[in-house]
Protein backbone atom coordinates (compact mmCIF):
# COMPACT_ATOMS: atom_id res chain seq x y z
CA UNK A 1 0.00 0.00 0.00
CA UNK A 2 2.78 2.29 0.98
CA UNK A 3 4.69 1.54 -2.18
CA UNK A 4 1.61 2.32 -4.24
CA UNK A 5 1.34 5.69 -2.54
CA UNK A 6 4.97 6.45 -3.31
CA UNK A 7 4.43 5.39 -6.88
CA UNK A 8 1.42 7.70 -7.18
CA UNK A 9 3.45 10.52 -5.70
CA UNK A 10 6.30 9.92 -8.10
CA UNK A 11 3.89 9.79 -11.03
CA UNK A 12 2.21 12.99 -9.96
CA UNK A 13 5.56 14.70 -9.57
CA UNK A 14 6.61 13.46 -12.98
CA UNK A 15 3.45 14.86 -14.53
CA UNK A 16 4.08 18.21 -12.86
CA UNK A 17 7.64 18.38 -14.20
CA UNK A 18 6.51 17.33 -17.66
CA UNK A 19 3.74 19.88 -17.82
CA UNK A 20 6.10 22.56 -16.56
CA UNK A 21 8.54 21.72 -19.33
CA UNK A 22 5.83 21.99 -21.94
CA UNK A 23 4.19 25.01 -20.41
CA UNK A 24 5.79 27.35 -22.96
CA UNK A 25 5.76 25.38 -26.20
CA UNK A 26 8.60 27.15 -28.01
CA UNK A 27 9.25 25.39 -31.28
CA UNK A 28 12.95 24.82 -31.85
CA UNK A 29 14.26 25.22 -35.39
CA UNK A 30 17.71 24.90 -36.93
CA UNK A 31 18.73 27.48 -39.51
CA UNK A 32 21.66 27.00 -41.87
CA UNK A 33 23.99 29.83 -42.86
CA UNK A 34 27.19 29.90 -44.90
CA UNK A 35 29.33 32.07 -42.68
CA UNK A 36 31.70 33.33 -45.39
CA UNK A 37 29.72 36.35 -46.52
CA UNK A 38 30.49 39.38 -44.40
CA UNK A 39 28.81 41.48 -43.12
CA UNK A 40 25.69 39.33 -43.54
CA UNK A 41 27.07 36.15 -41.99
CA UNK A 42 30.64 35.37 -41.02
CA UNK A 43 32.74 33.84 -38.26
CA UNK A 44 34.17 36.42 -35.86
CA UNK A 45 37.39 36.33 -33.86
CA UNK A 46 35.64 34.28 -31.16
CA UNK A 47 34.67 31.62 -33.72
CA UNK A 48 31.05 32.62 -33.42
CA UNK A 49 28.77 32.98 -36.41
CA UNK A 50 27.68 36.62 -36.46
CA UNK A 51 26.32 39.17 -38.90
CA UNK A 52 23.16 40.93 -39.98
CA UNK A 53 21.35 37.74 -40.95
CA UNK A 54 22.13 36.09 -37.63
CA UNK A 55 20.86 39.05 -35.61
CA UNK A 56 17.87 39.26 -37.91
CA UNK A 57 16.81 35.62 -37.59
CA UNK A 58 17.17 35.82 -33.82
CA UNK A 59 14.94 38.89 -33.74
CA UNK A 60 12.40 37.24 -36.04
CA UNK A 61 12.41 34.08 -33.94
CA UNK A 62 11.84 36.07 -30.78
CA UNK A 63 8.81 37.77 -32.31
CA UNK A 64 7.48 34.50 -33.73
CA UNK A 65 8.02 32.51 -30.54
CA UNK A 66 10.62 30.21 -32.05
CA UNK A 67 13.89 28.97 -30.69
CA UNK A 68 16.72 29.18 -33.21
CA UNK A 69 20.02 27.34 -33.55
CA UNK A 70 22.27 28.57 -36.35
CA UNK A 71 24.27 25.93 -38.17
CA UNK A 72 27.31 26.96 -40.19
CA UNK A 73 26.97 25.17 -43.53
CA UNK A 74 28.97 25.27 -46.77
CA UNK A 75 27.12 27.19 -49.48
CA UNK A 76 27.53 24.48 -52.12
CA UNK A 77 24.83 22.04 -51.16
CA UNK A 78 23.08 24.30 -48.66
CA UNK A 79 19.81 23.93 -50.59
CA UNK A 80 20.11 20.16 -50.73
CA UNK A 81 20.34 20.15 -46.92
CA UNK A 82 17.05 21.96 -46.40
CA UNK A 83 15.40 19.60 -48.87
CA UNK A 84 16.79 16.58 -47.02
CA UNK A 85 15.54 18.00 -43.71
CA UNK A 86 18.99 18.47 -42.13
CA UNK A 87 17.80 21.89 -41.02
CA UNK A 88 14.51 23.74 -41.18
CA UNK A 89 15.49 26.95 -42.93
CA UNK A 90 18.34 28.88 -44.58
CA UNK A 91 19.23 32.47 -43.83
CA UNK A 92 22.34 33.11 -45.87
CA UNK A 93 21.86 36.16 -48.11
CA UNK A 94 19.70 34.04 -50.42
CA UNK A 95 18.29 36.08 -53.28
CA UNK A 96 14.72 35.19 -54.18
CA UNK A 97 14.79 33.99 -57.81
CA UNK A 98 12.07 32.25 -59.85
CA UNK A 99 14.30 29.17 -60.25
CA UNK A 100 14.79 28.87 -56.51
CA UNK A 101 11.11 29.57 -55.84
CA UNK A 102 10.21 26.64 -58.07
CA UNK A 103 12.12 24.30 -55.74
CA UNK A 104 11.86 25.94 -52.31
CA UNK A 105 9.53 28.18 -50.38
CA UNK A 106 10.60 31.68 -49.38
CA UNK A 107 9.47 34.12 -46.74
CA UNK A 108 8.69 37.70 -47.69
CA UNK A 109 11.78 39.69 -48.74
CA UNK A 110 13.71 41.22 -45.84
CA UNK A 111 16.62 43.11 -47.45
CA UNK A 112 17.10 44.72 -50.87
CA UNK A 113 20.55 44.52 -52.44
CA UNK A 114 22.24 44.27 -55.84
CA UNK A 115 25.22 42.70 -57.55
CA UNK A 116 28.33 44.80 -58.00
CA UNK A 117 31.69 44.44 -59.73
CA UNK A 118 35.02 44.63 -57.89
CA UNK A 119 38.23 44.98 -59.92
CA UNK A 120 41.91 45.73 -59.32
CA UNK A 121 42.69 49.45 -59.01
CA UNK A 122 44.39 49.61 -62.43
CA UNK A 123 41.35 48.24 -64.32
CA UNK A 124 39.57 50.77 -66.56
CA UNK A 125 36.44 48.75 -67.33
CA UNK A 126 33.36 49.55 -65.28
CA UNK A 127 31.00 46.72 -66.13
CA UNK A 128 31.17 42.98 -66.82
CA UNK A 129 30.91 43.49 -70.60
CA UNK A 130 34.08 45.65 -70.50
CA UNK A 131 36.08 42.63 -69.35
CA UNK A 132 35.55 40.43 -72.41
CA UNK A 133 38.19 37.78 -72.93
CA UNK A 134 39.06 37.84 -69.24
CA UNK A 135 38.20 35.64 -66.28
CA UNK A 136 35.73 36.80 -63.67
CA UNK A 137 35.23 35.13 -60.32
CA UNK A 138 32.11 34.52 -58.24
CA UNK A 139 30.95 32.13 -55.58
CA UNK A 140 29.45 28.93 -56.96
CA UNK A 141 25.68 28.95 -57.39
CA UNK A 142 25.21 32.61 -56.47
CA UNK A 143 23.32 35.25 -58.41
CA UNK A 144 26.71 36.90 -59.00
CA UNK A 145 27.90 33.78 -60.88
CA UNK A 146 24.66 33.80 -62.89
CA UNK A 147 25.17 37.45 -63.87
CA UNK A 148 28.71 36.72 -65.16
CA UNK A 149 27.42 33.74 -67.10
CA UNK A 150 24.86 35.92 -68.86
CA UNK A 151 27.57 37.99 -70.56
CA UNK A 152 29.07 36.26 -73.62
CA UNK A 153 32.85 36.38 -74.02
CA UNK A 154 33.62 36.51 -70.31
CA UNK A 155 34.90 33.38 -68.62
CA UNK A 156 33.30 32.54 -65.28
CA UNK A 157 35.39 30.96 -62.55
CA UNK A 158 33.42 29.66 -59.60
CA UNK A 159 34.78 29.46 -56.07
CA UNK A 160 33.58 27.68 -52.95
CA UNK A 161 33.89 30.91 -50.98
CA UNK A 162 33.90 34.47 -52.23
CA UNK A 163 37.03 35.13 -50.13
CA UNK A 164 38.98 32.70 -52.31
CA UNK A 165 37.92 34.66 -55.38
CA UNK A 166 39.23 37.89 -53.87
CA UNK A 167 42.49 36.14 -52.95
CA UNK A 168 42.83 34.89 -56.53
CA UNK A 169 42.24 38.42 -57.82
CA UNK A 170 44.98 39.67 -55.48
CA UNK A 171 47.28 37.03 -57.03
CA UNK A 172 46.37 38.29 -60.49
CA UNK A 173 44.63 35.14 -61.67
CA UNK A 174 41.26 36.77 -62.37
CA UNK A 175 40.26 40.24 -63.57
CA UNK A 176 37.23 40.86 -61.37
CA UNK A 177 34.81 39.51 -58.79
CA UNK A 178 31.02 39.86 -58.83
CA UNK A 179 29.12 39.55 -55.55
CA UNK A 180 26.47 41.20 -53.38
CA UNK A 181 27.14 44.88 -52.71
CA UNK A 182 27.47 44.68 -48.89
CA UNK A 183 30.03 41.86 -49.18
CA UNK A 184 31.90 43.73 -51.92
CA UNK A 185 32.13 46.77 -49.65
CA UNK A 186 33.48 44.67 -46.79
CA UNK A 187 36.13 42.99 -48.92
CA UNK A 188 37.16 45.79 -51.25
CA UNK A 189 36.97 48.78 -48.93
CA UNK A 190 37.20 47.58 -45.34
CA UNK A 191 39.77 44.77 -45.41
CA UNK A 192 43.24 46.23 -44.95
CA UNK A 193 45.04 43.84 -47.29
CA UNK A 194 42.60 44.51 -50.15
CA UNK A 195 41.59 48.15 -49.83
CA UNK A 196 44.82 49.33 -51.45
CA UNK A 197 44.47 46.86 -54.32
CA UNK A 198 40.80 46.78 -55.28
CA UNK A 199 38.03 49.19 -56.13
CA UNK A 200 34.30 48.91 -56.64
CA UNK A 201 33.21 50.12 -60.06
CA UNK A 202 29.83 51.48 -61.11
CA UNK A 203 26.65 50.97 -59.17
CA UNK A 204 24.96 47.72 -58.29
CA UNK A 205 23.39 46.49 -61.53
CA UNK A 206 20.67 44.13 -60.29
CA UNK A 207 17.70 44.56 -58.01
CA UNK A 208 17.47 41.61 -55.67
CA UNK A 209 15.83 40.77 -52.39
CA UNK A 210 16.91 38.30 -49.74
CA UNK A 211 14.43 35.81 -48.34
CA UNK A 212 14.56 33.02 -45.78
CA UNK A 213 14.38 29.58 -47.44
CA UNK A 214 12.31 26.68 -46.12
CA UNK A 215 11.48 23.29 -47.57
CA UNK A 216 8.80 23.33 -50.23
CA UNK A 217 5.40 22.84 -48.64
CA UNK A 218 6.34 23.85 -45.10
CA UNK A 219 3.61 26.51 -45.07
CA UNK A 220 3.42 26.59 -41.28
CA UNK A 221 7.03 27.68 -40.82
CA UNK A 222 6.79 30.24 -43.64
CA UNK A 223 3.74 31.76 -41.93
CA UNK A 224 5.49 31.87 -38.55
CA UNK A 225 8.63 33.46 -40.00
CA UNK A 226 6.57 35.97 -42.02
CA UNK A 227 4.76 36.93 -38.86
CA UNK A 228 8.10 37.44 -37.12
CA UNK A 229 9.51 39.48 -40.02
CA UNK A 230 6.42 41.71 -40.02
CA UNK A 231 6.80 42.35 -36.29
CA UNK A 232 10.53 43.06 -36.62
CA UNK A 233 9.86 45.53 -39.43
CA UNK A 234 7.03 47.17 -37.55
CA UNK A 235 9.24 47.69 -34.51
CA UNK A 236 12.00 49.04 -36.79
CA UNK A 237 14.43 46.46 -35.41
CA UNK A 238 15.69 45.73 -38.93
CA UNK A 239 16.59 49.40 -39.40
CA UNK A 240 18.69 49.26 -36.23
CA UNK A 241 20.42 46.10 -37.43
CA UNK A 242 21.18 47.66 -40.81
CA UNK A 243 22.83 50.53 -38.97
CA UNK A 244 24.77 48.14 -36.75
CA UNK A 245 26.15 46.17 -39.71
CA UNK A 246 26.56 49.26 -41.91
CA UNK A 247 24.14 48.29 -44.65
CA UNK A 248 22.68 50.98 -46.85
Amino acid at each position, binding site marked *: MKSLRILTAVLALGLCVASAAFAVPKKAITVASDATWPPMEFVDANKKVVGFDIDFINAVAKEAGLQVTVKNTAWDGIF*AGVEAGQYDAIISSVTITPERQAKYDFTVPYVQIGQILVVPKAEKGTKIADLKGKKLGAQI*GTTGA*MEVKKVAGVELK*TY*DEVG*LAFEDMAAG*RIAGVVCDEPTAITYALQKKEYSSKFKIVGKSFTKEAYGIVVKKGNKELVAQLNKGIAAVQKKKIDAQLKKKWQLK
Partner: protein
Amino acid sequence: MSIEAKKQIIDVGDGAAIPRKSDRGLFTAWRIAFFGAIGTISYLAYSKPDPYLEILKFVPDGIAVTFKVTLGAILLAIVIGLITGLGRISKNRFFNGVASLYVEIIRGIPLLVQIFYIYYALGNIVKVPAILSAIIAMAVCYGAYMGEVVRAGIESIAKGQREAALSLGMNGRQAMIHVILPQAVKVILPPVGNEFIALLKDSSLVSIIAVADLLRRGREYASESFTYFETYTVIALIYLIITLFFSKIIGVMEERVSVNK
Protein backbone atom coordinates in the same frame (compact mmCIF):
# COMPACT_ATOMS: atom_id res chain seq x y z
CA MET B 1 67.89 -11.89 -45.99
CA SER B 2 67.92 -14.28 -48.89
CA ILE B 3 67.75 -13.08 -52.46
CA GLU B 4 64.39 -14.78 -53.05
CA ALA B 5 62.78 -13.02 -50.13
CA LYS B 6 63.78 -9.65 -51.54
CA LYS B 7 62.28 -10.29 -54.96
CA GLN B 8 58.71 -9.50 -54.11
CA ILE B 9 56.09 -7.53 -55.93
CA ILE B 10 55.50 -4.20 -54.24
CA ASP B 11 51.80 -3.95 -53.68
CA VAL B 12 51.00 -0.66 -52.04
CA GLY B 13 48.65 2.10 -53.05
CA ASP B 14 45.02 2.95 -52.73
CA GLY B 15 44.17 2.82 -56.41
CA ALA B 16 41.46 0.66 -57.90
CA ALA B 17 42.44 -2.98 -57.93
CA ILE B 18 44.02 -3.85 -61.24
CA PRO B 19 42.62 -7.12 -62.55
CA ARG B 20 45.18 -9.73 -63.51
CA LYS B 21 44.24 -12.73 -65.57
CA SER B 22 45.05 -15.06 -62.69
CA ASP B 23 42.50 -13.37 -60.45
CA ARG B 24 39.21 -14.60 -61.87
CA GLY B 25 36.97 -13.11 -59.22
CA LEU B 26 38.38 -9.62 -59.61
CA PHE B 27 38.21 -9.90 -63.38
CA THR B 28 34.50 -10.63 -63.26
CA ALA B 29 33.94 -7.82 -60.77
CA TRP B 30 35.71 -5.45 -63.14
CA ARG B 31 33.43 -6.47 -66.01
CA ILE B 32 30.27 -6.11 -63.95
CA ALA B 33 31.32 -2.70 -62.61
CA PHE B 34 32.58 -1.33 -65.93
CA PHE B 35 29.75 -2.42 -68.17
CA GLY B 36 27.23 -1.88 -65.40
CA ALA B 37 28.33 1.75 -65.05
CA ILE B 38 28.17 2.35 -68.79
CA GLY B 39 24.78 0.65 -68.95
CA THR B 40 23.40 2.65 -66.04
CA ILE B 41 24.56 5.98 -67.38
CA SER B 42 23.18 5.23 -70.87
CA TYR B 43 19.87 4.08 -69.44
CA LEU B 44 19.53 7.19 -67.28
CA ALA B 45 20.38 9.52 -70.17
CA TYR B 46 17.89 7.74 -72.40
CA SER B 47 15.01 7.37 -69.97
CA LYS B 48 15.33 10.73 -68.23
CA PRO B 49 17.14 13.15 -70.56
CA ASP B 50 16.27 15.98 -68.17
CA PRO B 51 18.45 16.21 -66.11
CA TYR B 52 20.75 13.25 -66.91
CA LEU B 53 21.50 14.05 -70.56
CA GLU B 54 21.83 17.73 -69.66
CA ILE B 55 24.43 16.87 -67.03
CA LEU B 56 26.35 14.74 -69.51
CA LYS B 57 26.36 17.63 -71.96
CA PHE B 58 27.60 20.04 -69.29
CA VAL B 59 30.66 18.17 -67.99
CA PRO B 60 32.88 17.10 -70.97
CA ASP B 61 35.28 20.05 -70.70
CA GLY B 62 35.62 19.14 -67.04
CA ILE B 63 36.65 15.60 -68.00
CA ALA B 64 39.30 17.10 -70.30
CA VAL B 65 40.66 19.19 -67.42
CA THR B 66 40.69 16.14 -65.11
CA PHE B 67 42.77 14.29 -67.72
CA LYS B 68 45.10 17.24 -68.18
CA VAL B 69 45.74 17.54 -64.47
CA THR B 70 46.18 13.79 -64.00
CA LEU B 71 48.54 13.25 -66.94
CA GLY B 72 50.58 16.37 -66.25
CA ALA B 73 50.88 15.51 -62.57
CA ILE B 74 51.81 11.85 -63.09
CA LEU B 75 54.56 12.69 -65.61
CA LEU B 76 56.01 15.35 -63.34
CA ALA B 77 55.61 13.05 -60.33
CA ILE B 78 57.54 10.26 -62.07
CA VAL B 79 60.44 12.65 -62.73
CA ILE B 80 60.37 13.93 -59.13
CA GLY B 81 59.97 10.34 -57.89
CA LEU B 82 62.97 9.09 -59.83
CA ILE B 83 65.20 11.84 -58.45
CA THR B 84 63.83 11.37 -54.94
CA GLY B 85 64.15 7.59 -55.09
CA LEU B 86 67.77 7.82 -56.20
CA GLY B 87 68.35 10.41 -53.48
CA ARG B 88 66.90 8.12 -50.83
CA ILE B 89 69.44 5.37 -51.62
CA SER B 90 72.29 7.75 -52.39
CA LYS B 91 75.46 7.63 -50.30
CA ASN B 92 75.84 11.37 -50.77
CA ARG B 93 74.64 12.61 -47.38
CA PHE B 94 73.35 15.94 -48.63
CA PHE B 95 71.37 14.48 -51.55
CA ASN B 96 70.05 11.72 -49.30
CA GLY B 97 69.10 14.16 -46.56
CA VAL B 98 67.20 16.49 -48.89
CA ALA B 99 65.29 13.62 -50.51
CA SER B 100 64.40 12.06 -47.15
CA LEU B 101 63.30 15.39 -45.72
CA TYR B 102 61.10 16.03 -48.73
CA VAL B 103 59.44 12.62 -48.37
CA GLU B 104 58.92 13.10 -44.63
CA ILE B 105 57.37 16.55 -45.00
CA ILE B 106 55.10 15.75 -47.93
CA ARG B 107 53.82 12.49 -46.51
CA GLY B 108 52.95 14.25 -43.29
CA ILE B 109 50.69 16.87 -44.86
CA PRO B 110 47.23 16.10 -46.25
CA LEU B 111 46.99 16.53 -50.01
CA LEU B 112 44.13 18.99 -49.68
CA VAL B 113 46.24 21.26 -47.47
CA GLN B 114 49.16 20.98 -49.88
CA ILE B 115 46.98 21.99 -52.80
CA PHE B 116 45.74 25.07 -50.97
CA TYR B 117 49.23 25.90 -49.77
CA ILE B 118 51.01 25.53 -53.09
CA TYR B 119 48.22 27.33 -54.94
CA TYR B 120 48.30 30.43 -52.75
CA ALA B 121 52.04 30.30 -52.06
CA LEU B 122 52.75 30.20 -55.79
CA GLY B 123 50.26 33.03 -56.28
CA ASN B 124 52.37 35.24 -54.04
CA ILE B 125 55.58 34.54 -55.91
CA VAL B 126 54.79 34.02 -59.58
CA LYS B 127 51.73 34.34 -61.74
CA VAL B 128 50.86 30.75 -62.59
CA PRO B 129 47.56 29.67 -64.14
CA ALA B 130 45.31 27.75 -61.78
CA ILE B 131 45.58 24.51 -63.72
CA LEU B 132 49.41 24.58 -63.67
CA SER B 133 49.36 25.25 -59.92
CA ALA B 134 47.11 22.24 -59.53
CA ILE B 135 49.45 20.04 -61.58
CA ILE B 136 52.47 21.20 -59.56
CA ALA B 137 50.68 20.63 -56.25
CA MET B 138 49.59 17.12 -57.19
CA ALA B 139 53.04 16.26 -58.60
CA VAL B 140 54.88 17.51 -55.52
CA CYS B 141 52.66 15.32 -53.35
CA TYR B 142 52.73 12.21 -55.50
CA GLY B 143 56.45 12.65 -56.22
CA ALA B 144 57.15 11.75 -52.59
CA TYR B 145 55.12 8.55 -52.78
CA MET B 146 56.62 7.78 -56.16
CA GLY B 147 60.09 8.29 -54.68
CA GLU B 148 59.39 5.56 -52.15
CA VAL B 149 58.16 3.25 -54.90
CA VAL B 150 61.34 3.87 -56.91
CA ARG B 151 63.50 3.31 -53.85
CA ALA B 152 61.77 0.04 -53.01
CA GLY B 153 62.00 -1.01 -56.66
CA ILE B 154 65.74 -0.41 -56.84
CA GLU B 155 66.34 -2.09 -53.51
CA SER B 156 64.43 -5.13 -54.71
CA ILE B 157 67.09 -5.82 -57.37
CA ALA B 158 69.64 -8.32 -56.11
CA LYS B 159 72.97 -6.89 -54.98
CA GLY B 160 74.74 -9.37 -57.22
CA GLN B 161 73.47 -7.50 -60.28
CA ARG B 162 75.33 -4.38 -59.29
CA GLU B 163 78.41 -6.30 -58.28
CA ALA B 164 78.43 -8.10 -61.62
CA ALA B 165 78.08 -4.83 -63.49
CA LEU B 166 80.93 -3.27 -61.52
CA SER B 167 83.15 -6.29 -62.14
CA LEU B 168 82.50 -5.86 -65.86
CA GLY B 169 84.15 -2.47 -65.58
CA MET B 170 81.07 -0.23 -65.33
CA ASN B 171 81.10 2.61 -62.88
CA GLY B 172 78.30 3.12 -60.36
CA ARG B 173 76.27 5.41 -62.59
CA GLN B 174 76.50 3.11 -65.60
CA ALA B 175 75.49 0.14 -63.47
CA MET B 176 72.42 2.05 -62.26
CA ILE B 177 71.34 3.24 -65.70
CA HIS B 178 72.09 0.12 -67.76
CA VAL B 179 71.60 -2.72 -65.28
CA ILE B 180 69.60 -1.81 -62.17
CA LEU B 181 66.96 0.64 -63.45
CA PRO B 182 65.83 -1.43 -66.48
CA GLN B 183 65.13 -4.33 -64.13
CA ALA B 184 63.61 -2.14 -61.46
CA VAL B 185 61.11 -0.68 -63.96
CA LYS B 186 59.32 -4.04 -64.15
CA VAL B 187 58.94 -4.11 -60.39
CA ILE B 188 57.98 -0.46 -60.19
CA LEU B 189 55.37 -0.49 -62.92
CA PRO B 190 52.47 -2.07 -60.97
CA PRO B 191 52.69 0.36 -58.03
CA VAL B 192 53.13 3.29 -60.43
CA GLY B 193 49.94 2.15 -62.14
CA ASN B 194 48.26 2.14 -58.75
CA GLU B 195 49.53 5.63 -58.04
CA PHE B 196 48.18 6.78 -61.37
CA ILE B 197 44.68 5.56 -60.56
CA ALA B 198 44.88 7.07 -57.07
CA LEU B 199 46.06 10.38 -58.55
CA LEU B 200 43.22 10.33 -61.05
CA LYS B 201 40.74 10.10 -58.18
CA ASP B 202 42.58 12.61 -55.99
CA SER B 203 42.59 15.08 -58.88
CA SER B 204 38.99 15.80 -57.86
CA LEU B 205 40.49 17.72 -54.92
CA VAL B 206 41.70 20.45 -57.26
CA SER B 207 38.11 21.56 -57.73
CA ILE B 208 38.60 23.30 -54.38
CA ILE B 209 40.96 25.84 -55.96
CA ALA B 210 38.40 26.63 -58.65
CA VAL B 211 39.98 24.48 -61.35
CA ALA B 212 37.07 23.56 -63.61
CA ASP B 213 37.55 19.78 -63.50
CA LEU B 214 34.89 17.09 -63.68
CA LEU B 215 33.79 17.47 -60.06
CA ARG B 216 33.68 21.28 -60.25
CA ARG B 217 31.57 21.19 -63.42
CA GLY B 218 29.20 18.80 -61.69
CA ARG B 219 28.99 21.06 -58.65
CA GLU B 220 28.31 24.06 -60.87
CA TYR B 221 25.50 22.22 -62.60
CA ALA B 222 24.01 21.02 -59.33
CA SER B 223 24.25 24.40 -57.65
CA GLU B 224 22.04 26.03 -60.26
CA SER B 225 19.65 23.23 -61.09
CA PHE B 226 19.43 21.91 -57.49
CA THR B 227 19.65 18.35 -58.86
CA TYR B 228 22.33 17.28 -56.41
CA PHE B 229 21.51 13.59 -56.26
CA GLU B 230 21.22 13.19 -60.03
CA THR B 231 24.40 15.17 -60.72
CA TYR B 232 26.58 13.33 -58.24
CA THR B 233 25.22 10.01 -59.53
CA VAL B 234 26.48 10.91 -63.00
CA ILE B 235 29.80 12.29 -61.71
CA ALA B 236 30.47 9.15 -59.66
CA LEU B 237 29.65 6.89 -62.62
CA ILE B 238 31.94 8.87 -64.94
CA TYR B 239 34.83 8.64 -62.47
CA LEU B 240 34.16 4.92 -62.10
CA ILE B 241 34.19 4.32 -65.85
CA ILE B 242 37.43 6.31 -66.27
CA THR B 243 39.30 4.62 -63.42
CA LEU B 244 38.16 1.13 -64.44
CA PHE B 245 39.15 1.83 -68.04
CA PHE B 246 42.65 2.91 -67.02
CA SER B 247 43.12 0.11 -64.52
CA LYS B 248 42.39 -2.32 -67.34
CA ILE B 249 44.92 -0.64 -69.63
CA ILE B 250 47.55 -0.67 -66.90
CA GLY B 251 46.78 -4.34 -66.22
CA VAL B 252 47.40 -5.17 -69.88
CA MET B 253 50.63 -3.14 -69.86
CA GLU B 254 51.89 -5.02 -66.82
CA GLU B 255 51.20 -8.35 -68.45
CA ARG B 256 53.14 -7.28 -71.53
CA VAL B 257 56.10 -6.33 -69.38
CA SER B 258 56.00 -9.47 -67.29
CA VAL B 259 55.83 -11.73 -70.38
CA ASN B 260 59.40 -10.94 -71.45
CA LYS B 261 60.76 -11.42 -67.97
